[in-house]
């Protein structure tokens, strides 16, 4: 499977869409169920992945109840687990893999990067009959909550499946999507020791307090990097984010081994993961305090979710062609239609 293209959509474009498969996550955040109260769930196989951690929190219990009422089939996995996600997918998708086309919805608002990266990689790499798959990713932003002091890092490294072994000696370029917990970005930069570093952060955000918090808690890093290495992107505008991020990666990839490290809002993380799928030489890292991480209530922002639809297609067919020679009056040169419309 290859990534063909992706689009940002309005919520109204997917509200009544019929999905074959829906993935959701249940944790302690208030926004876990927000999307599913608004969309069409009919006919879809509904899979819930619930965190093994913090499962006694009040909001979590409430979320679980809501999902059960909505008809979700529930499984549990650890926050950083890759193998458990694959096991779940193997269990629930056996029949679905025989289909030729698939329309999937993933609400990744409450998922960890490992989870939704694994879901994407699963469909890309699992042997199946699927020829085309559309995955719609939905993200419900949350109301601003004051940043807490960050907990110690338990994990700082590549997302499983989104890294590559390489045989060259290119220096590393680190591109970070900053979050608002203090100095996480700077810490990663010191640890990874790249040759050059760039930072992205959300501005404008839904709440200007977020921007202030990011700038304050990353002030030293931003001052070290300087204006030319810092980019601002609007949270809800995936096209602008992609345009800046993709173009930066393309300008660096010949000289550097690129590591993307999305530490902040998840739409940037999704863009990063999709970019690394399109350009496999790009790695994506995560920095996590694991189950010791801070707990934020994450009440849902009462606007529309941010929607990104990604189209994948099975890699195409061998070439066939005829030869031209206008002077010798041979048939006109043309490529078969499928090659004229290359898989992107």
């Amino acid at each position, binding site marked *: 499977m290859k*990534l*063909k*293209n*992706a*689009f*940002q959509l309005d919520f109204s474009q997917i509200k009544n869409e019929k999905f074959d498969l829906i993935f959701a996550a249940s944790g302690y955040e208030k926004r876990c169920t927000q999307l599913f109260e608004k969309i069409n769930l009919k006919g879809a196989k509904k899979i819930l992945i619930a965190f093994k951690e913090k499962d006694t929190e009040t909001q979590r219990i409430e979320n679980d109840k809501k999902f059960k009422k909505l008809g979700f089939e529930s499984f549990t996995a650890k926050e950083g687990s890759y193998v458990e996600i694959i096991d779940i997918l193997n269990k629930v998708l056996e029949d679905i893999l025989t289909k030729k086309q698939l329309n999937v919805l993933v609400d990744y608002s409450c998922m960890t990067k490992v989870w939704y990266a694994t879901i994407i990689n699963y469909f890309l790499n699992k042997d199946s009959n699927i020829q085309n798959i559309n995955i719609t990713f939905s993200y419900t932003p949350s109301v601003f909550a004051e940043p807490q002091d960050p907990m110690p890092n338990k994990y700082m490294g590549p997302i499983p499946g989104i890294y590559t072994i390489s045989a060259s000696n290119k220096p590393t370029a680190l591109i970070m999507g900053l979050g608002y917990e203090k100095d996480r970005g700077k810490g990663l930069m010191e640890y990874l020791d790249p040759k050059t570093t760039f930072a992205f952060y959300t501005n404008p955000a839904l709440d200007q307090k977020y921007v202030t918090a990011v700038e304050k808690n990353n002030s030293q890093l931003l001052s070290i990097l300087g204006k030319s290495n810092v*980019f601002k992107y609007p949270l809800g505008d*995936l*096209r602008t984010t*992609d*345009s*800046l*991020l*993709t*173009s*930066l990666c*393309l*300008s660096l990839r010949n000289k550097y081994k690129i590591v993307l490290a999305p530490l902040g809002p998840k739409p940037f993380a999704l*863009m990063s993961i*999709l*970019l690394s799928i*399109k350009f496999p030489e790009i790695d994506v890292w995560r920095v996590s305090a694991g189950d010791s991480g801070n707990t934020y209530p994450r009440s849902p922002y009462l606007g529309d979710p941010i929607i*990104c639809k*990604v189209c994948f297609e099975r890699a195409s067919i061998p*070439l066939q*062609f005829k*030869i*031209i*020679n*206008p*002077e*010798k*009056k*041979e048939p*006109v*040169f*043309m*490529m078969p239609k499928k090659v*004229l*419309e*290359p*898989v*992107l």
Partner: protein
Amino acid sequence: MSKFLGRWIYFLEQKNLRILIINSVYFHRRENLAGYGKIGKGQLESIEQYLSNHNDDKIKIVLCHHHILPHERLNLGAEDLMVNGNELIDILNRYFFDLVIHGHKHDPLLRYAPGSTFTVPVFSVGSFSATTNTIITGNRNHFHLIKIRKIKNISKGNIQTWEFLPSRGWVPADAGENFFPVLTGFGYRGTIDTLVDKTENIINKSPTPFLDWKKFIQKLPDVQNLTPQGCLEFKNKLISKNIITHPELPKCPIQIGRTHHP
């Protein structure tokens, strides 16, 4: 002398250059008419008459907005094709036009028009500044530098392309497999097999089974005048003869050589 034919057709005449400029939106007076391009039959007649009175070996280029060949890939649609475009192509072929340049589709694509003898190359130049809706793989903005050389009515062209990266500015085009190559061309009218045979001879005569690409091009300059599709065919035929370039065409190669099979 440059001349208007009516209000919507203009011939720009210079010493060695003739540019036929066609306004394919002249009739867009109502919404229902604005969904496609068009050249009128009367306009075609006046163009043909003009050309029959000016049959020389100038470099001849057409500039128009709409596409004259179907351009439906990437879900770009079919309904906006220039009406009477086929008839225009016939005329251009008969009078050995060297290049058609058009816009509208925002998707760079270079290919030959259909025809049985001479066929004109048609170049959709993409867009300088329009943005697209797709992400991750969205098309970029381009500009091109086109060089055409015409000797005894045979023209050959090279196109150099730049693309815009928002974080970096204008850079030579990436030439990845799905994007417009940084260097391409048109005007080679022989067969790909001939080029492949010549390539084999050059490599066989070389003291080593590989050559620096610049030296190879000096020996076989016609390779620079292949369209992207022609280039792709050339590459694949070379592979069948165990000859490859690095980097792979249509990127700019540094070397070409025969692979070793233990």
